[in-house]
Structures are given as C-alpha cells and as structure tokens.
C-alpha cells in the first residue's frame, strides 16, 4: 500500500514536470513527436533508477556517515553526469548495432534537471525513504515524466496541424497547453 501511494503520488499527484517543475527543458524540447517521447521515457526510467540507487547509497553510506551532507550537490551532479555517459559507452561497446538502433530511435536521453531533482528528493529527510522506497519513487517519477511527455507530445503533434494565431504559434501555445494540462492534472490532487 505504501508503495502504491508513492507510485500514485509521484506519477499523478506530484508529477515531476507538471507539478514539481523538474525537467521542463526536455519536456518542451523533445516533445515534438510521440515516438521519440515514448522512447525517451523508456530511457529516462532506466537512467533515473540507476542514478537514484547510486546517489542514495552515496548519500546514506558516505555523505551521512562522514557528515558532509553539504557536498551533496557536487557529488550528485558528478555521479549523474558520468553515469549517463557510462550507460551509453557500455551500450556502444557491448552492442554497437543495438546502440545504432537506439540512436535513430531516441534523440537524447539526458534530462539533467529531472534526474538530479529526483535524486535529491529521494534522499530528502522528510520522506525518510529506504532504498527500495527511494527506487520506487524514482521509477514512478520517471514514469510520470514519461507520461506527461507522451501526452504532451501528442498534443503538440496535434497543435502542429491546427490554425494557431501567429503570435501564439510554437512555444507560447505549447506553454499554454502545458498549463492546461497541469490544470487538468490538478484533479488528482489529494489522492492519498
């Protein structure tokens, strides 16, 4: 039950992009096509999970032990930046053709803000998560990110075909759509 609550809360109620404003740049940048949005979500789930597990261990068994919590930002960002690269290198090394296939399927997989943000949130003292809860939280957040992104990509593909007034075309209308999407997601608030 506790896990279900974490999942629902992270996906719907406190959606990372729509409610918590994490990873807004890729949310707007990579959401022009549904296909890529779906692909990206899959990758984000993996990266976010791995990143959260690693940073969680780092936090709890290094930073907390030595009482240097204030080094959180700098260690987390280094770990995350290299992790993302590591994943790609391994993939490329291990299976070049798989890597190529992903290459044309996905535009990019880094979402610094969201990954770092979720990693930071997962170790937040108020939540007091253990590793499993933190991981579940990360996975759910990533799914929430992916969900918002896929829905938004659908809306934007649709908007491409519509007759949007000149001044609103492109980015402005995308923001308004995102706003209305967030408005709709407010309906989930309080589910707990």
């Amino acid at each position, binding site marked *: 039950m506790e896990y279900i609550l974490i999942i629902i809360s992270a996906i719907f109620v406190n959606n990372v992009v*729509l*409610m*918590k*404003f*994490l*990873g*807004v*740049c890729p949310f*707007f940048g990579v959401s022009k096509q549904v296909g890529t949005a779906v692909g990206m979500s899959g990758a984000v789930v993996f990266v976010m999970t791995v990143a959260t597990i690693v940073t969680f261990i780092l936090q709890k068994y290094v930073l907390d032990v030595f009482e240097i919590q*204030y*080094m*959180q*930002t*700098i260690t*987390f*960002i*280094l770990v995350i*930046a*290299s992790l993302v690269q590591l994943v790609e290198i391994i993939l490329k090394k291990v299976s070049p053709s798989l890597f190529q296939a992903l290459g044309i399927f996905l535009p990019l997989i880094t979402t*610094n*803000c969201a990954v*770092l*943000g979720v990693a*930071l*949130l997962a170790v937040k003292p108020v939540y007091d998560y253990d590793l499993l809860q933190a991981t579940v939280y990360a996975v759910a957040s990533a799914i929430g990110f992916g969900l918002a992104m896929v829905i938004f990509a659908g809306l934007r593909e649709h908007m491409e075909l519509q007759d949007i007034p000149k*001044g*609103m075309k492109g*980015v*402005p*209308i*995308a*923001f*308004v759509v*995102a*706003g*209305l999407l*967030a*408005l709709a997601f*407010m309906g989930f608030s309080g589910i707990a």
Partner: protein
Amino acid sequence: MSKLKIFTRGFFSENAVFVMLLGLCPTLGTTTSAVNGLGMGIATTFVLVMSNIVVSLVKSQIPDKVRIPSFIVIIASFVTIVELTMQAYVPDLFEVLGLYIPLIVVNCLILGRAEAFASKNKVSDSILDGLGMGLGFTMALMMLGAVREILGSGSIFNISIYEGDGALVFVLAPGAFIVLGYLIALTNILTKKS
C-alpha cells in the same frame, strides 16, 4: 562586440527565459512571487558570474576532454557556496526556493555561458556576459513572479494592491506555465514589431 552589447544582449535579444528558453525549471518553480523570483535570479547570477570568472581564468589549463566535468565541479562548488550562505543568512528564502538552489547546477544557462563564452573570452568580458545574462534572467524571473503575484495573491513584493483573493491558479503550477506562455508571446510580438 562592444562591451555594452555583451552586457545588454542578455536582457533582450538573447534573454535566457523569453528567447532561449533556458533554465525553465527554476523559472517556473520559484516565481510564485516577485521576491522569490528576485532571490532565485540573484542566486543564479552570482553562480553565473563567479563561474564565468573562474572558467575564464583557468580555461587554458584545462584539457579539452575534461572541460565539461571541470566546469561542472566549478559550478557545483559555487552553487554549494550559495546554498551554505543562504542557509546561514536568508534561511526563509532558502526554504522557499528549496530544491531549485542545488538545481542551479544543471541550469543550461550557466554551463552554456561557461562553455560558449567564458571558455573563449577574457575575464572582463566574461564578467560582463555573466552579469548581463544573469540580470536578464533575474529580470525575467521577477517579471514572471510579479505577474503571478499580482494575479494570484493580489499583491506585489508582498504589498497588497487589491482587496480579496487573487486567482489561486496563478500561484500554482498551471498558472506558471500559462503566464510564461503569454509573456513569451508578448515578447515575440514586441520584438518582431521593433
């Protein structure tokens, strides 16, 4: 490029928020009021200027391949400094801005300026660039914060300007997106006309 232009383009032609759409998370997340926007903007500006200075100083000592990680370390250090200082001297603001302070690290604006400008230019120019970009960012955040505060809480800089409740949405997440959308539309229209 003239010094003036280096300084001013961050305000208008290359404004991080309205034109280049960088650093959207803090932009949206911290602008529930003008003051919060201002605070976030200043924190970001500080990191931006300082990291620009340092990057510009050490640029020739750093091998190409570790450029990015080095920059990240430099930026992250300044972010931590900001974090610690704010905790010590403006704890209330720090609490409101919360998560977004550490997230300054990943604001593409900062890494972007370090990479695209400071790593290629003199220290003095880098300071100007950082200051211009940072203040442009601050201005944008303040504007967004001000609009949201006026519409959402009926006040500006915590000074009440009309009676009664504002439209709550503007303080909440949807309002952030919507207001920014219209502000961008407005800048588009204004810049196209002039």
